[in-house]
């Protein structure tokens, strides 16, 4: 097996839960795991090497966005790996004991451990589990898109409602002003009328000097 001693770590330190095999030939070759404590954290185990005692697995993280792109055929399995800054390797013996663990910068992965640049998703080559996972992701993406649309609609409706409220407030202010103006006018008219009456009364009661 390739020498990875420079990248050796005490142990993998990941608590992962197996979800299903994506590639299989008389045994798993590519398997999907999730973090046992965070179901949104996805990992792939890719078979990479073997010797008399152990199988070596390359473990790398995958984001939902990258996984979706992979299933859509926009990126390869190689790119899924290379989208990480670093990856893990683990050597498992026949009793599935962890014999060695490594953390390796992605650009230092031996070429013999990497898939080719042609490693696009091919439905016919993958296990049923891969198709189930792809469908689940598509469903989630659809539902999340619908939610996004609903959110945008809600924001727009709220904006319309706010605008309507502002218009109502403005209308109320204008009406109030108009009413106040009208009241002032009435007051003014009443004042003029009163002044006129007083004047008239005065003119009647005062002796005519001329």
């Amino acid at each position, binding site marked *: 097996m390739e020498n990875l001693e420079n990248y050796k770590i005490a142990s993998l330190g990941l608590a992962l839960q197996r979800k299903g095999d994506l*590639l299989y030939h*008389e045994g798993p070759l590519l398997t999907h795991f999730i973090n046992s404590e965070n179901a949104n954290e996805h990992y792939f185990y890719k078979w990479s090497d073997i010797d008399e005692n152990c199988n070596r697995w390359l473990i790398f993280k995958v984001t939902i966005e990258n996984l979706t792109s992979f299933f859509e055929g926009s990126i390869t399995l190689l790119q899924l790996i290379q989208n990480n800054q670093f990856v893990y390797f683990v050597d498992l013996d*026949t009793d599935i004991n962890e014999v060695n663990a490594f953390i390796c910068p992605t650009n230092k992965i031996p070429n013999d451990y990497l*898939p080719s640049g042609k490693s696009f998703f091919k439905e016919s080559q993958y296990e049923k589990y891969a198709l189930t996972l792809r469908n689940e992701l598509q469903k989630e993406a659809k539902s999340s898109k619908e939610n996004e649309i609903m959110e945008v609609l809600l924001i727009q409706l709220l904006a319309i409602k706010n605008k309507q409220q502002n218009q109502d407030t403005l209308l109320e202010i204008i009406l109030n002003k108009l009413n106040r103006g009208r009241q002032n006018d009435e007051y003014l008219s009443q004042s003029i009328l009163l002044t006129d009456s007083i004047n008239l009364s005065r003119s009647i009661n005062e002796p005519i000097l001329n």
Partner: protein
Amino acid sequence: MDFQFLEDFKKISVKCPPESYISKNMQVFRWVFDDITDERNFQPLFYRNPKKYLGASDWEKCKGLALSLFISEDFAKNRFYDLKDTTCPIAYKVLGTNVAKCDITENDGLNEEPNNIGHFNHHPVKNHDYENRFTIISKL
């Protein structure tokens, strides 16, 4: 049928081999290592490495007790090169290095219906003697 892994079938709760599997006379192709007597050539993975199947469903265990065969040399090669592209250039270390062929009979075991890449699982009977009946025909 007196299957090679009958005792292992009894340890799992699903019907193994599945009901839909049939016996058939046909020419089949399989990946093998250089030495045809290499014990890995005709031993299913679950049998060789049962602990690898910890947490696997009984159906997966049943599948792990079958040998992978192809209906043509081309199908065998195409699948090999696809898996090599998808896993790594040294995939031959676990998958095999040659294509071998054999004429199997309806007495040799039960077979799955081949899928669209020409692959099917085969549950062999005891004493199939495949080491002497399979012949290497090409290098992978």
